[in-house]
């Protein structure tokens, strides 16, 4: 083992986890998740517990990853924050307001991009603005701005089917950013891409997102992806999902592929694998 994984990576600074009642407005979490329980009932299974007592405070402007094994409820939690899925008990607040429906402060990037094939790139990026009632000219300009931001200026009039997977996902990102969300939710945004494109787009997305002030919540089951991108990582237990620990990723910014060769990176990576390991064993046993 390269370094002692110990507890030193676990969120150390208690002042960074402010108590809602005591803290002034400035330190208030962007998203406050407390005691959230969620179970699904379907034809196949009745009352399947997906999330068990989930607690998390997302800080304004941070990049936090939800990391965990398949089926642990990461997507469920993300959709709860997005207001797309109701939960059974507990509370989920955005800026103190309980989440009951999709909020205008939130935008989402979908795993399979969710682009409209009948719309051009510009049409796709304008989609959220249309729904928000932004008038034509401003809508166009805003869309162009974000299309340029993701580096697709030349493809404004192309249709998604004419673009590669990586380019399509950048359209998805532009569409979400165009509504100027305070919180950006991403559910395995690189999941449908090949390994090479995935790696390229990760760093590119990082530099794009540095130009926004948005708080970012990313769902992933890749330890490397979480480490490379995040300020913090929330590690889930297997189903029923529960956040086991929240890690500070104190790797230097701005990040590029070189961070992966830092000893600190290797140590954190090892620590996370160790955290997930008993999980893997339990999986094998059952």
């Amino acid at each position, binding site marked *: 083992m390269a370094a002692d994984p110990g507890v030193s990576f676990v969120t150390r600074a208690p002042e960074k986890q402010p108590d809602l009642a005591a803290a002034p407005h400035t330190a208030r979490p962007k998203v406050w998740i407390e005691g959230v329980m969620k179970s699904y009932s379907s034809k196949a299974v009745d009352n399947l517990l997906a999330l068990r007592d989930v607690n998390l405070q997302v800080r304004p402007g941070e990049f936090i990853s939800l990391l965990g094994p398949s089926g642990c409820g990461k997507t469920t939690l993300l959709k709860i924050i997005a*207001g797309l899925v109701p939960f059974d008990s507990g509370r989920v607040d955005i800026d103190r307001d309980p989440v009951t429906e*999709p909020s*205008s402060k939130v*935008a989402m990037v*979908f795993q399979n991009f969710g682009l*409209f094939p009948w719309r051009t790139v510009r049409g796709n990026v304008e989609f959220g603005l249309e729904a*928000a009632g932004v008038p034509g000219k401003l809508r166009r300009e805003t869309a162009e701005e974000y299309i340029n931001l993701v580096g697709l200026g030349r493809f404004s009039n192309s249709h998604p*089917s004419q673009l590669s997977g990586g380019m399509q996902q950048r359209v998805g990102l532009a569409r979400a950013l165009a*509504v100027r969300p305070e919180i950006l939710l991403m559910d395995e945004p690189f999941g449908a891409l090949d390994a090479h494109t995935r790696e390229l787009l990760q760093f590119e997305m990082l530099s794009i997102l540095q130009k926004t002030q948005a708080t970012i919540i990313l769902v992933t089951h890749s330890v490397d992806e979480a480490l490379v991108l995040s300020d913090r990582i929330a590690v889930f237990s297997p189903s029923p999902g529960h956040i086991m620990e929240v890690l500070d990723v104190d790797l230097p910014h701005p990040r590029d592929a070189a961070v992966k060769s830092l000893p600190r990176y290797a140590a954190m990576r090892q620590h996370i694998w160790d955290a997930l390991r008993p999980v893997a064993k339990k999986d094998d046993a059952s």
Partner: protein
Amino acid sequence: MKRRSLPDLVWAVLGIVLIVAVWQFYGQLTNPFLFPSFTRVLGQLWEYIASGILGRAFVETMGLLVVGLAIGSVVGIVVGIVIGSNANLSATFAPFIQVAYSTPRIALIPLVMLWFGVGFNAQVVLVFLSCVFEVVTATEAGVQLVTKQYREVARSFRLSRLQTFIKVILPGSVSYIFSGIRLGMGSAFVGALGAQMFMQASGLGSVVKHAMQSFRTDQVMACVITLAITAAVLTAGMRRAEQRIAPWRNDSFDD
């Protein structure tokens, strides 16, 4: 794609030439009353065209087809959207529509005659019944698929129900609707011919019927060729229209 189209065409022409050659050869050997040669059928076809019989019949049949298909499409789209938007309605009508869809609608001719008579309006009813279920089924499937695919995208961008319908469901379903109309057109053509043969004789149906009753195999075959070419052209036209409208969709609803 471009590179393959030329050899494909060459093969298709070869196939046609081969079939025509065999046909011609066999037709000259055998009794022309049972199996007229290709040139004989061609001659009859020309006679039909020159006399204006075929042209008039063609217009009559197309008129019936277009009216019936138009009504069937409009009703089919509306019903398909309504059913496709509501899971309970969909479950309620699924068995009925499936049975209706797979029943040869020609069998409804006696009932249609009983209830609506044999005139043009009754024939339109038969054509309508022939195609409406195709359109309903395809539209319903399209609406359900698009809804499933984009419901969360639309909700996360806070679209109202009406906005979701106009901006997502409708444009997303158009290509499915077109596939339904194309399928419906095939059945509507069968329905129109059936109506014109077995109800009040008119159009191509009556020409076929007349040829059959006078034992003119060459005339029957000339009619069959006309029908085959018409159906092929109509279907190809619809396919092209579909591709125009939804170039991203290279799958098709039926095949």
